């Protein structure tokens, strides 16, 4: 089981309010990602759930039990830290065994579970090494191993991949997703990387300045962002946000159109634009253009598209994919 409910949770450090008031329900077995820019309170929220910080108000329930004032160890949660936080003086085997040892398990049970975790995480050959002798990815797997042996009711990940290089990040992302499918345990994952959020989550919680901006599945957030913040945050490259006359034509203060929803033509279209930098990724090309009367836009085009710096092109937004926002920033 791993049902987590936050009721009116708030957190302040002295006079600074980090989280004003949050209500959130996380279902058993869900992969929930807290995403938001630096300082939005996502890590604090995770630490509140973990019990590493005390709430200033509200309550936290895990599996129907009020754990608001319980010690971290009693919440049956396991956490993977950004710095891995492995015990440097212990071998990999001892690191993974540590929570079991603290729980007073017999040596036989410990050995069996450590062997099993090492097998799942491809660490069998490294059990006698110290963390200092491992690569970043291996350390991360040890940290995950230490978390899974406890069979917690939920896993908490605090930006676990941000210390890894891009290639390894991609691999570990898959491994964590695969692990979630195998274990089917609730996972709460904090990241500032919206790609991680989109690819891994069942449910994304977008946070900004301690407030929940929107909760939904990755595709819900992509298709129907409730406000400008979510519209600008989810999606890569970012959604083009246009104000002024072009927006007024759609009866909105601001309209948003994603780079992949702009049709390119060399002869005709709604907006005339001059090509600036073209980023060729192979499969795709991202064009940074200056549209007349609109301003800078990003366009996602076919990888084979042959346009040069300074070329003139015409862009037509897909009318069904135009997002409209009112003066208060909310979607219309």
């Amino acid at each position, binding site marked *: 089981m791993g049902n987590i409910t936050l009721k009116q949770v708030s957190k302040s450090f002295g006079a600074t309010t980090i989280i004003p008031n949050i209500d959130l329900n996380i279902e058993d077995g869900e992969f929930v990602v807290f995403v938001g820019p630096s300082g939005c309170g996502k890590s604090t929220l995770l630490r509140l759930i973990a019990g590493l910080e005390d709430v200033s108000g509200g309550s936290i329930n895990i599996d129907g039990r009020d754990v608001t004032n319980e010690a971290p160890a009693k919440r049956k949660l*396991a956490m993977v830290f950004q710095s891995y936080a492995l015990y440097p003086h212990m071998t990999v085997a001892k690191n993974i065994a540590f929570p079991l040892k*603290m*729980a007073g398990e017999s040596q036989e049970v410990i050995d069996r579970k450590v062997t099993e975790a090492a097998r799942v995480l491809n660490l069998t050959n490294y059990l006698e090494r110290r963390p200092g002798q491992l690569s970043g990815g291996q350390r991360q797997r040890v940290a995950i191993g230490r978390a899974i042996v406890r069979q917690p009711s939920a896993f908490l990940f605090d930006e676990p991949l941000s210390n890894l290089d891009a290639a390894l990040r991609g691999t570990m992302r898959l491994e964590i997703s695969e692990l979630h499918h195998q274990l089917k345990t609730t996972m709460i994952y904090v990241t500032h990387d919206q790609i991680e959020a989109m690819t891994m989550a069942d449910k994304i919680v977008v946070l900004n300045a301690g407030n929940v901006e929107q909760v939904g599945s990755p595709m819900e957030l992509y298709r129907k962002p409730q406000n400008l913040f979510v519209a600008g945050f989810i999606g890569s490259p970012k959604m083009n946000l246009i104000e002024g006359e072009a927006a007024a034509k759609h009866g909105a203060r601001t309209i948003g159109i994603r780079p992949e929803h702009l049709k390119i033509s060399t002869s005709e279209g709604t907006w005339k634009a001059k090509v600036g930098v073209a980023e060729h990724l192979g499969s795709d090309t991202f064009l940074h253009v200056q549209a007349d009367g609109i301003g800078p836009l990003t366009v996602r085009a076919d990888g084979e598209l042959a346009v040069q710096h300074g070329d003139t092109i015409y862009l037509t937004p897909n009318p069904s994919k135009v997002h409209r926002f009112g003066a208060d920033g909310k979607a219309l």
Partner: protein
Amino acid sequence: MARTVSDSTKLGWTIAAWIVALLIFFPILYTIITSFKSETEAIAGFNLVPSGTLESYAEVQSQYNYFKPFMNSVILSVGSTILALIVAIPAAWSMAFSPTNRTKDILMWMLSTKMMPAVAVLVPMYLIFRDWNLLDNRGGLTVMLMLINLPIVVWMLYTYFREIPGEILEAARMDGASLWGEIVYVLTPMAVPGIASTLLLNIILAWNEAFWTIRLTTTNAAPLTAFIVSFSSPQGLFWAKLSAASTLAIAPILVLGWFSQKQLVRGLTFGAVK
């Protein structure tokens, strides 16, 4: 790109480093050399080749008992270090892991006591020791040495403890460790190298302390520093004997320092190098 250094530059720096090292070590070396000379040789002038006689050592041993001041030095340095650690570990611990707004001020205040010349409090300290019957008393001197080095011990330990990442302690808490489990299985093993180098450095500092040990003792509690002094003043300038006594006094700490070089270097850099 790393800076390229030519072989001749490297050789130049190596020679320079050796010269500086030799210059620093020279007084100790010359003391050792002189200790193997006869008194006539010793006053004859600068000479790096001793005759190799052991007469000074024999005389030092026959006239004075080396063992007693040696044992006093051991008791004072080890005793004051252990006392200092008992006081400093919890202090540094709490300052490192639950600091308040005033923690830095307290640390600075502690350090500032080291900026005062010891002689400034010689008279009051002497009077206190006299009135409490602590003159020439090992217990009193042990406490004195402990207090002198306490600021450095607290600072060193504080720096080491600060290096232990808070996330590791949080991980232990998440892993179900009680406060006791956290201390026994995680904190202590990680802090041991820091405590060990603090211990070594403090033993050396206490062993070499010559201001209070000479002024607050006469015979009973006199350590090796006082042992050396006893050769220099009353008997005039017997260089060879004085050198033999000095060599005997520094030999134990030199050996200790030699075997614990690695720990000491780490201790002396005060945790600055990570």
